[in-house]
């Protein structure tokens, strides 16, 4: 189930980067990221738990991870 309030988009080019995927899993305090094999997966049921800490945005190359506040759109 997608988030009601938050969406997270990851550039497909970096989603397959195993090292970056591991880093995103590590930094997110509310487990929005998981790894399936070597590929990054968004855990949709946890999207609304996002605390807007921006750690994922800072961990990835600029512009490749976006946290979207759906209530602002």
């Amino acid at each position, binding site marked *: 189930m997608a988030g*009601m*309030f938050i969406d997270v988009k990851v550039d497909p080019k970096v989603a397959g980067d195993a090292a970056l995927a591991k880093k995103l899993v590590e930094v997110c305090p509310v487990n929005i990221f998981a790894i399936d094999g070597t590929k990054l997966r968004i855990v949709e049921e946890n999207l*609304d*738990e996002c*605390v*807007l800490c921006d750690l994922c945005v800072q961990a990835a190359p600029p512009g490749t991870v976006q946290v979207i*506040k759906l*209530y602002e759109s």
Partner: protein
Amino acid sequence: MRFYEYESKALFARHGLPLGKRALARTADDARRAAAEIGGPVVLKSQVLSGGRMKAGAVKFADDPAQAAAHFDAILPIVVNGQKSCGVLVEEKSPIAQEYYVGVTWDGRRKLPVVIFSDMGGIDIEEVAEKHPDHVSKTHVSTLLPFTPRVAKEAIAATGVTGNDLTRLTPIVAKLVEIFFQYDLTLAEINPLAKLADGRFIVLDGHVDLEGDAREKHKKLLDELGIKPEETRQARPPTDFEIRGAQVDASDHRGVAGNVVEFDGNLGLVIGAGGGSLTLFDAVRKHGGRPANYCEIGGNPSVKKACALTKLVLSKPGVEKIAVMMNVVSNTRVDIVARGVVKGCVESGRDPAKTIAIFRIPGSWEADGFKILEKYGVEFCDRSVSMYEAAGRAVAKMGK
């Protein structure tokens, strides 16, 4: 959490308070045996988490073991104020010359423990305070300075007790205060504390309440007294709604969203913040509202937890709307709670705009929280609206 009388006395006994010979009976044979071992007349008292035992006929005197067994059978089935008996305490009958009262509890206004003492024990202390205020003393105890028996002596002497009685009573009252502090009690009470014909003092009835949040700290004591973790020891057994509330709180370590108490009103409450729950509950009642529940949220619960609590409250038959109100929050985030309650409404098949009578949680991340509420058409207010006024707005919407 309340202790049964026999448990309170077991605690008192560990600290050397004077008690009569006694034994807990679970069967009529136990009662017969206990009476025989004690020897002489005994009193049999139903063990319930409630007062009013004498009036309910759950206290009886027996002159011999056979009578004790018969009284056991008569007492055990008696339900006192909705409380079933867990057993019968068989205790030696003492020749009483005078009865006193001593209690230690928290004075919410002064934010200090207070020792309440009276030379008119054995009856309801509130009644004594109302009809004979000169026979009741209230002495506050510092939580910063070390406790000394002098405080206990002052409390007793304030009711006019002097001489030998003052000397003999002082260590008993002092010990009760020490027990109150040592075990994080919210109430330690002896009523009556009896003076016997020979001048000795003895605890005839005692009652302690342990702070619920201190259960883990005093696990060893509770284990030794045989109190199981699942025993809530509230004034009545928890309802299914309350049990599910506890499950919501236990489902996630983040924050608090629980301590749910069921009432029979139509306005569901999702409330909290450092005493805010009590204030808001009272405010709703003061405005003529009928709360469907009490609860506590705080410590920044997760969205899932706030959502689950909202769904639980909305699942209660008769709940028309909910009021989401807190004091100004700092560690709890407004946007997280807003997400949780809006989601809870949606997942319950309800329109948040029509279901949330008022959302009054100002503080941390309120700008984001208010954007969420705006999007879903929920009425909200910031700290310029008092908690009392917010409660009034919620109540005014009921029935409309």
